[in-house]
């Protein structure tokens, strides 16, 4: 049964709740929905799952953009009610007829709602009798059914829009209130979605929604624990485990005794006084502290350019009617009107190196927020869409929490603990280089830094950090190669506490996101040391892989951690920003998929090339 149905304004006032379903909701599902989904521009998703101690709900919503109303239905996840979408649509229709901006109480709506609910339930009953128990999905009425969400175990944290991947087959050719089938969702996307984990993605393990799967029943049984419900992952892990201990041995070609020493650095240099390499202090101000001057080309200039190429496929016939509409300004925006503008916008975003599915989801979310809205007079559809998209982009890129690292460092200093930062990422993105840049910046703010060389795999990694440490004159904690990185990190933190360093920067080895044993090792490092900041280092050159990288990293960190509250990625460090000209889309993809803010941007290879993300500049470049 439906737990609750709410109607509230976008400004936050609840206009109506159903009195009959008087159950108080455990936790605060609505607030969480707003904060994690609607404000994160994921309103194109079909539903949202919420877990509170003692209850697990699924929420569905629909907007009335013209009046600024939101309709949300909450029900238990175990029951998969077929009639919710239809009920929401009908409620929306009925309520918008009696809505008056001045009124705040709508008790007369109770009666209407009761009738609507009876109708919807009756229809659902009929359907259940008609459809076979196996719940095959393609029939005429096609009420979207979130059975994917219902059965995939209550282990999902926060959003799992992976659900929509499995249910896209249902939604084709039918008007959905939650606006997620725009004809763009097709089987290809479904396949793609099954391959990757989406959002803070637990992977949608059940790829067969058609037949009732006994394994799903099993997963339901395992609902208690927070561990992964993906059985394949577990089996893969156990197989590879024994192989983990293979270490590299030097190749022997003949009978000469093996040379055990592989460390060929020149030890003479260490004892020479450091004057040779000390020049860090004179490199000037780090770009972090420089305010970026946003070039204010006139806005009109942009708009003209925008209007010229924003509608490459606008039909000539439609020009006159759109002109007329823009002057009269009375038309309600329909999906069909939004489509060409949105498609053009999506293409533009993709040419700026935004991952394809991110652009897709963003466009859907913007469409969901614009559908049904009245066009203001003297505006065209494309400019309205543009404005909405700009607002959405600013909203996504604005950090959700404070990114003032200095403040956190000072807070940790007061507690006499070092502030630990761990740099993670795939191979070759620039972790060690940017670690040195961050160290330089911190040094300029009079914070004492220590480096920890936990990259014990790559040849030369420790020497690289040793060179940086020598140039910056900061202590470095290293244990050579082939040691357990987690243990090295732990000892480094203890050393830092002993010698009073404020910050410990931990460098880890690069690893691919689907390399199970390495991800396990990383998870162990993070679990053991509980760092204050887990910084994901990603390069701005990455394309669609950014989505995969970040979501897999987050997922593996969550799955493979043995603690009940796993640490996820807290921030992003975007590197090689100087190599992309204006194709800044990677920033957007990364922020969208992980929800964590971009804390630093690396824009060069010297110590001063580290800056903050300028949200307005990025948005401007993306939409140019």
């Amino acid at each position, binding site marked *: 049964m439906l737990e609750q149905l709410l109607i509230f304004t976008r400004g936050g*006032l*609840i206009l109506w*709740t159903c009195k009959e379903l008087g159950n108080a909701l455990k936790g605060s599902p609505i607030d969480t929905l707003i904060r994690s989904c609607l404000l994160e521009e994921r309103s194109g998703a079909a539903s949202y799952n919420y877990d509170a101690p003692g209850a697990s709900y699924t929420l569905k919503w629909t907007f009335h953009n013209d009046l600024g109303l*939101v309709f949300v239905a909450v029900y238990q996840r175990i029951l998969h009610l077929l009639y919710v979408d239809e009920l929401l649509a009908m409620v929306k229709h009925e309520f918008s007829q009696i809505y008056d901006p001045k009124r705040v109480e709508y008790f007369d709506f109770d009666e209407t709602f009761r009738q609507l609910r009876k109708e919807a339930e009756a229809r659902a009953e009929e359907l259940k009798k008609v459809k076979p128990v196996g719940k095959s999905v393609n029939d005429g009425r096609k009420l979207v059914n979130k059975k994917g969400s219902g059965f995939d175990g209550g282990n999902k944290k926060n959003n799992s829009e992976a659900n929509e991947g499995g249910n896209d087959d249902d939604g084709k050719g039918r008007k959905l209130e939650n606006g997620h089938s725009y004809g763009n969702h097709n089987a290809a996307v479904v396949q793609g979605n099954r391959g990757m984990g989406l959002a803070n993605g637990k992977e949608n393990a059940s790829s067969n929604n058609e037949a009732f799967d006994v394994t799903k029943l099993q997963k339901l049984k395992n609902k208690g624990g927070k561990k992964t419900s993906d059985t394949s992952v577990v089996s893969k892990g156990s197989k590879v485990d024994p192989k983990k201990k293979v270490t590299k041995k030097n190749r022997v070609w003949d009978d000469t005794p093996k040379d055990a020493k592989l460390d060929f650095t020149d030890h003479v240099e260490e004892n020479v006084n450091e004057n040779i390499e000390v020049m860090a202090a004179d490199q000037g101000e780090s770009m972090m502290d420089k305010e970026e001057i946003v070039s204010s080309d006139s806005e009109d200039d942009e708009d003209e350019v925008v209007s010229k190429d924003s509608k490459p496929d606008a039909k000539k016939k439609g020009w006159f009617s759109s002109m007329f509409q823009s002057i009269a300004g009375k038309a309600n925006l329909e999906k069909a009107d939004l489509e060409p503008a949105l498609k053009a916008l999506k293409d533009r975003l993709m040419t700026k190196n935004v991952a394809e599915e991110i652009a897709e989801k963003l466009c859907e979310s913007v469409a969901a927020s614009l559908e049904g809205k009245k066009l203001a007079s003297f505006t065209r559809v494309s400019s309205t869409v543009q404005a909405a998209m700009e607002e959405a982009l600013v909203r996504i890129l604005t950090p959700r929490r404070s990114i003032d690292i200095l403040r956190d460092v000072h807070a940790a200093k007061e507690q006499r603990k070092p502030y630990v930062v761990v740099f993670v990422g795939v191979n070759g993105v620039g972790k060690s280089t940017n670690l040195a840049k961050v160290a330089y910046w911190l040094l300029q703010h009079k914070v004492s830094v220590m480096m920890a060389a936990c990259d014990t795999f790559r040849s030369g990694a420790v020497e690289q950090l040793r060179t940086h440490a020598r140039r910056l004159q900061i202590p470095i904690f290293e244990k050579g190669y082939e040691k357990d990185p987690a243990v090295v990190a732990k000892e480094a933190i203890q050393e830092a506490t002993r010698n009073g360093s404020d910050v410990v920067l931990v460098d880890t080895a690069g690893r691919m996101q689907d390399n199970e044993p390495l991800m396990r090792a990383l998870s162990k490092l993070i679990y053991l040391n509980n760092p204050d900041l887990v910084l994901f280092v990603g390069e701005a050159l990455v394309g669609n892989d950014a989505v995969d990288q970040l979501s897999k990293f987050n997922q593996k960190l969550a799955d493979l951690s043995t603690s009940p509250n796993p640490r996820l990625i807290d921030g992003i460090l975007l590197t090689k920003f100087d190599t992309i000209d204006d194709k800044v889309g990677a920033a957007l993809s990364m922020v969208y998929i992980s929800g964590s803010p971009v804390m630093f941007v690396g824009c060069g290879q010297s110590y001063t090339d580290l800056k903050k993300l300028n949200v307005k500049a990025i948005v401007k470049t993306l939409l140019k």
Partner: protein
Amino acid sequence: MEGIEQWKTEAQQWLRQGIEYAHQIPPTQLYAAVAVLLFTTLLLLIIRLLKRTKSNTIVLSGLSGSGKTVLFYQLRDGSSHQGTVTSMEPNEGTFLLHSESAKKGKIKPVHVVDVPGHSRLRPKLDEFLPQAAGIVFVVDALEFLPNLSAVTEYLYDILTKASVVKRKLPVLICCNKTDKVTAHTKEFIRKQLEKEIEKLRVSRSGVSDADIANDYALGIPGEAFSFSQCINKVTVGEASGLTGDISQVEEFIRAHVK
């Protein structure tokens, strides 16, 4: 070239005709018309100038969940109706405060704006500050300590914004939810905020020329920060949105919107 010549001659002809016509009108009418025109423009300019000095906007800001929307509806209607959820958009309204609707006389309606507190929607605050006559910063007195750092940062940002300092906007720090038993007192909250802002001030102005994140610096260097050091007037008050005990807020509003 000939086209331009033609147009020139035509334009000159029209000019001559216009001047002849103007000469035909009796001079008094002409002067009267010009005088009326000048007078109305002057009047409009003066009205605009006068209006600009007195703004009647009050901005409600604060963290998400501190009770701004409830306060907004209390001010407007005297009750918070059926409850609120996290706001996604600002709530604006120009109205007479509910408690004053019974009073007779010429009371100016107040334009109250409730800006969402969610961090993603922070930029919306900057849209409304330029026209504000006062700011009510709502603090959750119940969940004060867990959110202390976020509250401090937000308050610090507001107190160092150029539009606030230059125009000396008065700020009321309103401790909400005081009807609950475990809510902190306003004195406690004031002291904690002053301490935290002091810490923040020190860390932010560590390397003063390198850090230009905020427009102005707060307080006097060398002394512990206290709200009395702010150029704009900062006061602390109490309120309870749910029960309707919002008299201090209303006094503040009335004091600054005359």
